[in-house]
């Protein structure tokens, strides 16, 4: 019993959130942050075989001020960490981060003092992409999962309440403990 029943055919209704999500996801410009071998796979995603431009991401740039998405590809050393944070701070809101590859996601096999054990120590990460290096399909898959997330993001007060609820849920969740009784 709403307005949608009185409309002539061929007219589509949506919410402001969905419209904003659609606009945000269909022209997301990535800022490259290639630091190691993952960057090679990231470059090939921009090439004709995988062609990230199909998803509205043709402009792979090194300029953070014209970017919405930072793809951190490769291991982040302690020395690179402040640079990464600065690049992230220079990006305009709204912005997203993909941690591409195991090194960016958690330090990977480089469990040592030189490498930051996951870029989420420095910047908030929206999508973790395992693989060493991930094949281009895996990056496209991560990008599409992120697009889905962006499409369904709420706005304003709704977003605020969503964040608070998530925070409460995470604080209240039971810790993933391994049952010690069964072993003995």
């Amino acid at each position, binding site marked *: 019993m709403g307005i949608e029943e009185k409309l002539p055919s061929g007219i589509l209704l949506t919410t402001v959130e969905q419209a904003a999500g659609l606009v945000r996801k269909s022209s997301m410009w990535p800022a490259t942050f290639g630091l190691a071998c993952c960057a090679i796979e990231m470059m090939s995603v921009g090439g*004709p*075989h*995988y*062609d990230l431009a*199909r998803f509205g991401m043709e402009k792979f740039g090194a300029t953070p001020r014209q970017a919405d998405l930072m793809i951190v590809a490769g291991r982040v050393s302690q020395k690179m960490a402040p640079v990464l944070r600065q690049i992230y701070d220079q990006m305009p809101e709204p912005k997203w981060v993909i941690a591409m590859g*195991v090194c960016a*996601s*958690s*330090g*990977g*096999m480089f*469990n040592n003092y030189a490498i930051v054990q*996951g870029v*989420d120590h420095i910047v908030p990460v*929206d*999508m*973790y*992409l*395992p*693989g*060493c290096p*991930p*094949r*281009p*399909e*895996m990056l*496209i*898959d*991560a990008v*599409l*999962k992120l697009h889905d*997330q962006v499409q369904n993001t709420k706005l304003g007060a709704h977003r605020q309440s969503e964040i608070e609820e998530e925070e409460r849920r995470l604080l209240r969740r039971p810790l*993933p403990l*391994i049952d010690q009784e*069964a*072993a003995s």
Partner: protein
Amino acid sequence: MLDWLNPVKGFGVTFHTMFKKVPTIEYPEEPRPTAPRFHGRHQLNRWADGLEKCIGCELCAWACPADAIYVEGADNNEDERYSPGERYGRVYQINYLRCILCGLCVEACPTRALTMTNEYELADDNRQSLIWTKEQLLAPLREGMEAPPHPMRLGETEEDYYRSGRGADRQADAGTESDKDSEAVR
């Protein structure tokens, strides 16, 4: 003589490209199959009666260069049997944020319990759900399999079990050659 054509020649290349085959792989709609031995996510295999092949020896965890695997073994007993031998892997976790999919764990596995599949779509939005537990890694139950714990069903003695088990395994593999769930790396 035909120098006046030079400025136009470049457009010829552009025009010619319009009739070339497009090399783009339409990934999410039509994914290109991986190489048959591609190192995707892991899988914990089962014997033909559904018992787990993993014996909880932790050799995979020792071989792992990134320390991505966590195994905790426990003893089988007659009431509760998960694998045909003495011990089974009670806890089995692979942290895909550490795993570099090198396959050294597969080489280390003495019972061929751990193999790799061709699945690669692993991205997720939090670190916790990328630590895969045993339930997620175990191969799905095929026809004739029953979820453990249950007693050994493939023969009276252990030799019987392993011989018939292996034979049944081979038959099952031959029967479902195109089955994606079969051991991808042999």
